[in-house]
């Protein structure tokens, strides 16, 4: 178990280094930070001083090492745009994104798995066919379009739900939450549905496919031949085996949710990291972009690790060595 975790963590290191290199390259070379910081009026002496201040005259790897050292401590400098420490900015925005992603993931997972199981078990019922058709439309709609349509219907047309922002938030230490107020919860609905919908349809279709695959296996047939009831066969045997690949997929989807949050947050003006990132992109705010990248990579690597561990927990075959290849 321990060795397994260690090996996975070690595999994550090169990924993090690669991402760090990319964001450092951005940080150091994109859009000439010196020019950005100095503005329009400067002397050569001022320029040289700033270059040496920032350590830009040092060899590449020295700069890179220092960047990594700083990044490891969460130190990414000050946002060019907002003149505040990047870590602080991201810390403020992270709860918004994480709460949104959490709700979207719950919607996608719960509804996706339930609908996937249903359509897998009763694949000829009219409801299954309906769900499948609707889900195809779901994957064919770009998320930004869904968001715009939802705003149109539920905010402008029906006036039920807010069209932007987080509503009232409650501060719990450094964490701001929208879960504790009615307006906060209402504000969460449209964005998390928008964000979850695409993943929901994907998860549903994947669960269905896995379910069909598993239902065709010999051990399901054998379980039936042993006289086990439908419930035991479907949920005890089929679903549990379906879960193995679904965990991977769900992990991937969670990553997708955080990435697609960029789009959703833009449409709903949701004050999260994605919106911060897009605003930083348009303002060429390199420190924020670099930090966001590193953070997102960290999130993904963590998700991957958790997925591996879950896998390990669900699939006993993995517990001896790594003889069996993962999933499909």
């Amino acid at each position, binding site marked *: 178990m321990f060795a397994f975790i260690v090996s996975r963590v070690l595999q994550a290191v090169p990924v993090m280094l690669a991402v760090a290199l990319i964001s450092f390259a951005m940080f150091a070379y994109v*859009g000439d930070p010196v020019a950005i*910081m100095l503005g329009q009026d400067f002397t050569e002496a001022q320029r040289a001083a*700033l270059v040496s201040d920032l350590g830009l005259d040092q060899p590449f790897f020295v700069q890179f090492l220092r960047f990594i050292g700083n990044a490891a401590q969460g130190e990414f400098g000050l946002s060019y*745009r*907002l003149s*505040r420490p990047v870590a602080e900015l991201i810390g403020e925005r992270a709860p918004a994104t994480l709460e949104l992603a959490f709700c979207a993931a719950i919607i996608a997972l719960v509804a996706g798995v339930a609908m996937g199981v249903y359509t897998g078990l009763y694949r000829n019922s009219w409801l299954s066919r309906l769900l499948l058709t609707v889900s195809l439309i779901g994957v064919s709609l770009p998320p930004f379009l869904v968001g715009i349509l939802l705003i*149109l219907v539920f905010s402008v047309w029906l006036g039920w739900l807010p*069209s*932007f922002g987080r509503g009232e938030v409650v501060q719990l230490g450094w964490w701001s939450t929208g879960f504790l107020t009615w307006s906060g919860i209402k504000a969460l609905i449209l964005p998390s549905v928008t964000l979850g919908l695409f993943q929901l349809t994907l998860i549903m279709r994947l669960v269905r496919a896995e379910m069909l695959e598993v239902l065709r296996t010999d051990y399901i047939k054998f379980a039936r031949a042993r006289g086990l009831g439908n419930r035991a066969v479907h949920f005890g045997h089929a679903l549990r085996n379906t879960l193995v690949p679904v965990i991977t997929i769900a992990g991937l989807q969670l990553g997708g949710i955080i990435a697609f949050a960029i789009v959703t947050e833009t449409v709903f*003006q949701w004050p999260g990291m994605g919106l911060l990132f897009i605003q930083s992109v348009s303002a060429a705010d390199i420190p924020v972009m670099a930090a966001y990248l590193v953070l997102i990579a960290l999130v993904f690597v963590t998700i991957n690790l958790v997925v591996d561990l879950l896998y390990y927990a669900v699939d006993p075959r993995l517990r001896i060595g790594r003889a069996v290849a993962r999933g499909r």
Partner: protein
Amino acid sequence: MVHWVRAAALVAVLGAMPAVGAMAQTVRWAASGDPNTMDPHSQNVGTVTMVLQQIYDPLIHRDRDLSLTPGLATAWRQVEPSRWRFTLRQGVRFHDGQGFGPEDVVFSITRALQPTSNFGIYVDTIAKVEAVDAQTVDIITKAPDPILPNKLASVFMMSKAWSEANNAARPQNTRAREEMVTTRNTNGTGAYRLATREPDVRTVLVRNPAWWGWQVEGNTGNVAEIVFRPIASDATRIAALLSGEVDFVLDPPLQDLNRLRAAPGVKVVEGPEVRTIFLAFDTAREELLYSDVKGRNPFRDLRVRQALYQAIDIQAIHRTTMRGQSVVTGTLIPEQVNGYAKSEDVRLPFDAARARALLAEAGYPQGFSVTLDCPNNRYINDEQICQNIAAMWSRAGVRTAVKAQPLAPFFAQIQRDDTSVYLLGWGVPTLDALYSFQSLLATRNGAQGDGIWNYGGYSNPRMDALIQRMKVESGEARKATIREALQLYREDLPHIPLHHQMIPWAMRSTVTIPHMANNQPYFRWAMAGAQ
């Protein structure tokens, strides 16, 4: 489709009903941009000022017609050509309770003069500030400065004690990696004080009942709380207004005005802005960038500039892209600005045939290609205007590609002189022509303020001389000088003027905020809760 439009209107009605609409005297205000600092001397941009001017007072206020009225100074006069004397208002207190006095004026102006300040253009002529006595301050200028009061109307007064205690004696340098207390905290003397500041999310201002101005006639505002939220997406911002989630949108998109006008419970207030949109040419380079013309710069040829001018059907842009929300112009400054002359506000006529002829005459019968640089989130429909013009120029033979980008990279690029022709909009906070001429048309010579936005590299000694005279002259002589400069502007065509922006504001009908030509809402005059 028609259904939801009707439904939208219906919702707007519902939204206007008390349950949703009228929270007592709170105005929820949205605009596309968020102020990027709360430091009063750091960023000279409208998005910062629109919030800070509710919190800080300058020595001199502007009235509803933008004329000068007493602010923290009750009176001012030019005691000598280079010395202005200001009489300070008594009994004024900062939000932290400390009293306002001459030392704060000295401190604030000195602070605005710091290199990290972005307000140099307003104070660059000042040599010295002297506290004469407890209620008098003298400002000594390097040379006679007739329009100093106009400039000082844009310089906010800070507390010396508070700033020094918080290590904020110089403006925050937004370009360097520093965060200061003033980035997020304020201590002004103004009508509102800052209650909550969440960048990009929410800025809440609450009424300062102790403000001196509430005693002054005309400041009849009843707004107790201002909640400002930036909403970048046009559609979302309008949806929020229609659904009653916000009360006031500073910058509704032009194409939605008809919808807003038709929506019950929403009103659109229109008026001109003191901002002129124009195209500026690179007239300095020997060889044009981003063009297929090699070895020469067609824009150095007056005939080419004139051809491109006459190729533009400005009325079509006014009608279609601006939906009537623009004042077509042939000059550099709008009517509200001191020095404006009606006789100089004449455009070269739109004449496509003439444009082609001029191009041929200049040696470009087949035209040439060029890239038009353009911001896409700074001015009203900026990118669309550029595309309109690209189509018009292409028809005249000048194959034009539009490079539209957000304002940050756009400004960074043109500030490197990395452009052939670009679109810019110029506002005149001093309401004086010098501000425009000095920034946009003076030869860049390193002197503070001269040609700092002249990225086309226009340089004409005659123009420079006129600008120098504008700085020192006053009265009729100065008026004549400005007029001569405007004339020269029309002859030289360093720019193609397009129009002055109109700035519609949209608000719920329960809210009344007087429309201002500087695009700044003044909440001291705002009424909420009344139909």
